[in-house]
């Protein structure tokens, strides 16, 4: 299909963008980042925005900054830039690992870090990573700036806590310090396809056992979900699996989830996958 017509504006500062948003209040305007999720919706005529505000020429929305206790990833940084960022690779490798598995090179060259978060597709790979790493989102509107933890950002299917006048500036990714290992385990049918289920794992190791673990799941509900029951069981689990302690800990991964049903998987299969993949993700993170 081909999109319906829309207005197009391209501001050069975030303030300008926020002002345009404020003035448009009530109209259906949409921020355009890499367009990799928004344009398909327009082309299929599932969305009919009156105007698109292209964030593509706002320099301050791009790039990765290495701060004292966190890494700041600006919203318009492309997936490809994130994957290739030395800072990301060193300070928050889970982000690089997961982003490298997003779609294909063409999509990664256009799609953005912030667009993926703001789009809040439960099948997207990055929201689960945001949860697992306790990222904090920085948000701007004509009224000012606010921050929001990842745990409060993802509200429902394709829905975030962002208000209509708000722009996501980026996210602070806390530096976790020494001893942590990471893995993103993605299960999908073709190389460029979305996750049927994904598991983001961050694991701290001390003296041959896991002392702390964070596990978040992709596509196991209408938002990404933390597998808290697994996290509670991880401390004390030997890194080199002794007597099935890890399998035991992972077995509750799908508890309290309401996975979707679609052509690729029904809920019971997704629950099963969540358990199997959680064990694998934690094992690889701990290795």
């Amino acid at each position, binding site marked *: *299909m*081909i*999109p*319906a*017509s829309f207005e197009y504006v391209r501001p050069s500062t975030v303030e300008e963008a926020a002002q345009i948003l404020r003035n448009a209040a009530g109209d259906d305007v949409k921020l355009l980042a890499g367009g990799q999720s928004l344009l*398909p919706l327009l*082309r*299929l005529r599932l969305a009919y925005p009156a105007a698109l505000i292209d964030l593509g020429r706002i320099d301050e929305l791009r790039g990765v900054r290495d701060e004292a206790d966190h890494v700041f990833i600006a919203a318009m940084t492309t997936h490809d830039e994130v994957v290739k960022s030395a800072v990301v690779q060193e300070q928050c490798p889970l982000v690089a690992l997961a982003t490298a598995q997003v779609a*294909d090179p063409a999509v990664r060259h256009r799609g953005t870090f912030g667009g993926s978060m703001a789009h809040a597709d439960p099948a997207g790979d990055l929201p689960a990573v945001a949860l697992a790493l306790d990222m904090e989102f920085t948000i701007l509107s004509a009224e000012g700036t606010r921050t929001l933890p990842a745990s409060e950002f993802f509200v429902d299917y394709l829905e975030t806590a962002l208000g209509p006048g708000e722009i996501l500036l980026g996210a602070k990714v806390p530096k976790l310090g020494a001893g942590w290992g990471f893995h993103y385990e993605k*299960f999908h*049918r*073709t*190389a*460029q*396809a*979305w996750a*049927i289920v994904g598991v983001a794992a961050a694991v701290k190791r001390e003296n041959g056992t896991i002392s702390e673990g964070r596990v978040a799941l992709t596509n196991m509900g209408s938002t990404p979900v933390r597998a808290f029951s697994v996290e509670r069981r991880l401390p004390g689990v030997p890194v080199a699996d002794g007597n099935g302690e890890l399998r035991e800990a992972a077995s509750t991964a799908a508890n309290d989830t309401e996975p979707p049903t679609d*052509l*690729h*998987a*029904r809920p019971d*299969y997704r629950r*099963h*996958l969540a358990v*199997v*993949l959680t064990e694998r993700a934690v094992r690889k993170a701990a290795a």
Partner: protein
Amino acid sequence: MSTTEAEIGRARRRKEDARLITGRTQWTDNIQLPGMLHVAFLRSPMAHARIIRVDVSAAKGQPGVVAVFSGQDFGDEQGSLPCAWPVTEDIVIPDHPPMATSTVRYVGEAVACVIATDRYKAADALDAIEIDYEPLPAVLDMNEALAEGATPVHEGGNKSFTWKFGTGDAEAAFRDAPVVIERTYVQQRLIPSAMEPRAVVAQTDGDSFIVHSATQIPHILRVMLAATTGIPEHKIRVIAPDVGGGFGSKLQVTAEEVLTLLISKRLGRPVKWTESRSEGNLTVHHGRDQIQRISLAASADGVLRGVKVDLLADMGAYLMLVTPGIPLLGAFMYTGVYKMDAYDFTCTGVFTTKMPTDAYRGAGRPEATYAIERAMDELAHEIGVDPLEIRRRNWIKHEEFPYATAGGLTYDSGNYEAATDRAMALFGYDKLRAEQADRRDRNDPVQLGIGVSTYTEMCGLAPSRVLGSLRYAAGGWEHATIRMLPTGKVEVVTGTSPHGQGHETAWSQIVADSLGVPFDDVAVLHGDTASSPRGMDTYGSRSLVVGGIAVLQACEKVKENAKQVAAHLLECAPEDLEFTDGAFRVRGTEAAKTIQEIALATFAAHDLPEGFEPQLDAGSTFDPEAFSFPHGTHLCAIEVDTETGESKIRSYVAVDDIGNVINPLIVEGQVHGGIAQGIAQALYEEAVYDSDGNLLTTTMADYLIPSAADLPDFTTARTVTPATSNPLGVKGVGEAGTIASTPAVVNALVDALSPYGIRDVAMPCTPERVWRAIQGGTS
């Protein structure tokens, strides 16, 4: 004796590729004409409904809209889309208006159209068309469609035809047979996904028409457009410019082609239609969709006595160009490479409220090969021998060719032993079997499976008399004309219509060898009924086997003409001349005339033999005597993660015997793409309709096509047993990979799962289905 390197057999890079790959060429959608309008179609959201009311008035007032038409507006003028293959005398061929007039029968069927000054305005105005439907029950399942009391898709019920074929006494073969295998396989519905979507541009000067279409069949299309619309054939010129893939999906006369032509006739302006990918998934004719019941009767040691096949073939809502013929193209192949006494085949074509099916790469033969190759594995399992051993016990031995099969065909040549030996050596068969045993012993969560497919197929459509006996409306010949230009360059006019196959390169190689001219001196013209008036187009791996022979024969005629001129100029008898390295030479002397010199002399015409018409050009129309029969052995090793159900092809060996090879690089490309498409059927692709008849797989996020990243390296090799049925000894390679690979992959998967007591997984064998099978449920 030639001193220059032969062109035939050379891995020439394709001369058309730079243009095709960069897109700097005439794709139909690239065409811009002054005053051109754009058409968008409103499509039925219902699988089955009566049209109660159509109101296009609001749409007519939308910005940029020039006209809006419903099916009623065209009435009889739009005719009925043709079915050229009435397979039985009593076949039911329903009326098929290009735009529905009273009833819609599948989601996506065109009901109205908007013509506007640009594509976007046309699409916008579709929303303003009002249509009231009275829903009727969707008919989706073939068995239910045939049951008593089923909702009829068309008046007269849901059976289109039943076609039967048999040789020998099947009842006798099955009576008291020590081993009988009976299986049912489902060939899921597939959506052909050519890289270039369909597109049409129609224009008129008020009297005659030019239709550009992304089609495989410009020649057939011209005849059929004339027959459907009543516009005289000589007033229609069809051009298939560069076409980006088809796989059978563009072997069609589509509603959109007919309507775009009629709209340009009515409005007197050029009109363009280009489909979107989602529109294509809905309305490009689909492929496969058969339920196959196959039975084998064998002796206690697995020697076949007979095969019986009972097939249901989903026609979809209407019969399109060759819809009913597709299962017939498989009918003769269910006996595969095997000997037996008797064979019995029955096929029933069934109407459902889904997109019509028609040719898709392999067209009938992949289905047949899948069934027999899967069933042979079951026979091997039943009597406890290796799948390769069961094949050895049954296949036609190389010294037995030519061989008249129970399938009713005579295979001219083949060497299944040689291809299989080669494949086993490349594969490391015994080592993989040992690893498999080890993994089974260790209860490894990742199991290994090995799959075999020893396939053959029939190529080179087709001897016209055979097509006639099968009630197909046209012949199977092909035409070529060779034009010698004054400067000695050569134009080949071919009736084949390449859409990615590389004919420009391959035909140039044939001509270069035959006429002794440089490869670069040959140009190939195709796809335009004005410059290439005669042809049967490209499908069914026919182009080289039929069209290539026409090229060769036309070259021979040109040489005959040239020889007379040469003899005259060299003042000798034609019998004293030999033709080597592009020149006629008087035997035993230095005297010679090159073909270029002769071309120029003929053009000047100052000094030609008495009564000789001053031209060398010649045409040839080749009608094959017989089909050709490529064959080969494909071996697949697959790893199955039993915890997730995911399977991964670890290695794949394809040894194909396609006879002589014109260009190994082109062959390699066809084999790779073909294998990928067969793997896609085995593991990835499926058109899914919901219970209301809505297609759920309208985007590539839902209809999964594997890419290079998902596929293993293929190890390919060839054995060469030339075809005896044509002078080049070629057999065709366009479909072999697709035909061979699907059963090889599924046989491997089932082999991996056999420790779990699993003997079948429905295609596509998705991770979820495999996991469910392992859980003991049905997939």
